[in-house]
């Protein structure tokens, strides 16, 4: 399963995949370095990670053409671990995160992605964009005007170079930015910070090494919270990116395999001296835009990245940080969903609140998992409160028999029981009350309890109470029977509308 792939997956688009893979590799280098800096480790950790993850996921991933590597989303979760315990613990945490992700795959946790509404997803991307941008701020504060000028020039090249006839569509503009800014800094002897100042760059191929941590329970308790967070956030971004690519390329992906694949890739990364990562939405979009579709594109991206890094690491060291910042600002702008700002005016208010909550919680905690969880919970609460509207009780009184009939229609559940009770007039003196519930749906025990209470109270006032249609209504108690894929049962339940 994990290794099965068709000839089409690998060789269906050789030329397109290789060219796109090279374009992606060029953009991956600055990103991997930038994310290493976020996590507080040497650039080589992110570069080794990006190589390992891209190459492994090309083989075991569930979504052909998706790019995975070291990412901002996961890097943000590692900062304190690296600060307090050092690199080796980060490597161990990466391996453990991978194990958890494989487990999640086997437990079918990918199905939980259906709880993530569009608003939460947009909030996730916007929060990610904001965090990537914020991570660039240290490079832009307390610096000389040269840095601002270089960054502005870099951004101008990134966005304007593609308009140059012919060349603009052949040479990736982030590469042009890096080359031009580096040449400028070296030629004019401008004294600005360069990548070489940020830590060690790779000079050899990565080697397999077991993380140098004591194999004790204590170690486990140190790394476990980080691994859990990394595993969750990594899967969230990977599954969302897979969805985006599915939609973009009109093809399917295997989400369960993607979960397990991400796990294998993170274990591989940790053992090769790299940090944990996940799918990258920006790079995956760049890949598709450049014509990459197959597994070969992801593989090429990883291999080309390693070749470039190992053999030109001396040159990498002289790249000014301003060039990197310009590329990362581009990634941030590209990740942000700008339409979502316009849509605030047209979307229903709850959607906007869910989106903004996801963003605010994420930016506040620097943890995308918290943001997503708050968004999902809020969305569920809004849903429950809206569902409450779908319930009413009609009253008809029969003079001759002195009988009051209450007909309950719609959804009775924990959130609508109070409203349900309020429909009943306990003060009115009648001989008999009939409660017709055959068009109602009693979703949970709160609903059943509320009905019991109403009946008891009416009887206490001296009324004879009869409930009709209870069988149909209580059949909707979901816990008692499974409706799964039985159209006639669903029909029956929805008959109340």
């Amino acid at each position, binding site marked *: 399963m994990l290794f099965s792939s068709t000839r089409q997956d690998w060789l269906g688009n050789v030329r397109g995949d290789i060219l796109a893979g090279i374009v*992606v590799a060029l953009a991956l280098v600055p990103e991997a370095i930038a994310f290493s800096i976020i996590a507080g480790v040497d650039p080589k950790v992110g570069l080794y990670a990006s190589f390992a993850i891209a190459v492994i996921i090309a083989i075991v991933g569930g979504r052909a053409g998706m790019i995975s590597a070291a990412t901002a989303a996961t890097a943000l979760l590692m900062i304190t671990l690296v600060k307090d315990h050092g690199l080796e613990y980060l490597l161990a945490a990466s391996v453990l995160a991978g194990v958890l992700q494989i487990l999640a795959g086997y437990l079918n946790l990918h199905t939980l992605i259906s709880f993530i509404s569009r608003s939460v997803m947009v909030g996730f991307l916007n929060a990610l964009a904001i965090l990537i941008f914020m991570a660039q701020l240290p490079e832009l504060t307390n610096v000389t005007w040269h840095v601002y000028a270089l960054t502005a020039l870099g951004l101008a090249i990134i966005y304007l170079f593609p308009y140059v006839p012919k060349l603009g569509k052949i040479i990736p503009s982030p590469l042009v930015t890096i080359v031009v800014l580096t040449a400028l800094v070296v030629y004019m002897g401008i004294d600005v910070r360069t990548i070489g100042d940020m830590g060690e760059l790779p000079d050899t191929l990565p080697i397999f090494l077991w993380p140098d941590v004591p194999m004790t329970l204590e170690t486990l308790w140190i790394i476990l919270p980080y691994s859990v967070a990394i595993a969750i956030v990594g899967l969230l971004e990977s599954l969302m990116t897979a969805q985006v690519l599915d939609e973009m390329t009109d093809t399917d992906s295997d989400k369960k395999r993607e979960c397990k694949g991400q796990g294998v890739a993170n274990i591989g990364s940790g053992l090769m001296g790299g940090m944990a990562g996940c799918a990258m939405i920006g790079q995956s979009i760049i890949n598709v835009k450049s014509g990459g579709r197959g597994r070969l594109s992801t593989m090429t991206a990883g291999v080309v990245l390693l070749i470039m890094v190992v053999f030109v690491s001396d040159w990498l060291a002289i790249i000014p940080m301003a060039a990197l910042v310009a590329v990362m600002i581009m990634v941030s702008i590209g990740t942000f969903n700008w339409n979502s700002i316009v849509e605030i005016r047209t979307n229903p208010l709850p959607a906007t609140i869910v989106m903004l909550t996801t963003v605010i919680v994420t930016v506040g905690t620097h943890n995308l998992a918290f943001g997503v969880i708050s968004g999902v919970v809020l969305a569920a609460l809004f849903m429950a409160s809206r569902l409450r509207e779908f319930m009413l009780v009609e009253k008809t009184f029969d003079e001759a028999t002195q009988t009051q009939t209450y007909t309950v229609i719609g959804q009775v559940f924990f959130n609508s029981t109070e409203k349900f009770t309020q429909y009943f007039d306990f003060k009115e003196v009648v001989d008999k009350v009939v409660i017709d519930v055959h068009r109602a749906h009693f979703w949970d025990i709160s609903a059943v309890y509320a009905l019991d209470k109403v009946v008891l109270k009416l009887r206490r006032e001296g009324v004879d109470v009869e409930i009709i249609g209870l069988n149909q209504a209580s059949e909707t108690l979901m816990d008692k029977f499974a409706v799964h894929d039985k159209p006639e049962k669903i029909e029956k339940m929805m008959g109340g509308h």
Partner: protein
Amino acid sequence: MTHSHSAQTEPKKWIMACIDDSSLSNAVVDYAAWLAQAFGQPLEVLHTLEHPIQHNSHNHSGNLTPNQQEWLTKSLSEEDQVLNKQRIQHGKDILANAQLRLTDFQQQATQQGLNGLVEYVTKQRHGTLTDTLTDLQDNIKVLVLGMNGTQSQTIKDANKSANTIGSQIEAAIKLLHKPVLIVNQMFSTPNSIMLAFNDTPGAHLALEMICASPLCKTLKVHAVHVTDNLQKGQILIEQARQKLTTAGVTFQTALLQGQAHTALLDYQQQHNLDLTVMGAFNHGKLHTLLFGSVTAKMLQHTQKPLLLLR
């Protein structure tokens, strides 16, 4: 009575002919029509629209502009829309040609006073052949495919002299637990059949089918078994002989020695037999890895259509 009732709830089964641009498509339609007529089954001619990755625009600018995702999704889907409309039209032309052949077939049958086709339809589906067959498998009675399959345009045949097997054929046969007729020549009405017989479920199924089919009353059947264990072979052949006699089929038997596929092909050439019926891919993965698959070798070397049963 109960049997006919349960048959009603089952999906309708079709003789399914898969065609494309390849030169064999006419033959596929003809053989499928022959089968459909012989078995009195409805016939469906199917064209699958594969979606190869095509690039009209080469953009390696590598930057992310605002709202890139929405823009890219929109432009890619517009591109696909145009391409798919072209593909659908192209497929419709191919199917119209098949439709014409079938109308002719019907007319000829009526002229000769024979029963024609009970029903025939043409259809198109998006997706690869394997995906399509997975989706439709409950509706297939017999699948008819051309030897150089639906992918002949994308897989360049390096060696034109040997049979080029469409890359998806083997996958399709393994995936589908249904009889598959592989067509590799222009149509000529089969007069004789070689039943490659051995002690596998597929082969027994083939024997049952031949005994049950009204078609085989009009054909000469050669039941052939290849083995080095003549004693055991004799018993097998005897089994086949009894069944065929009871069914009233005109037949002869042969017990051959040597390599399965060469012996079978030599025999077929000697007696000029028009169609081979055999069980397919009976052995496990390990056996196939070590000894190679007889089915695959037959597919590679035979000059005559093959009806494979699993």
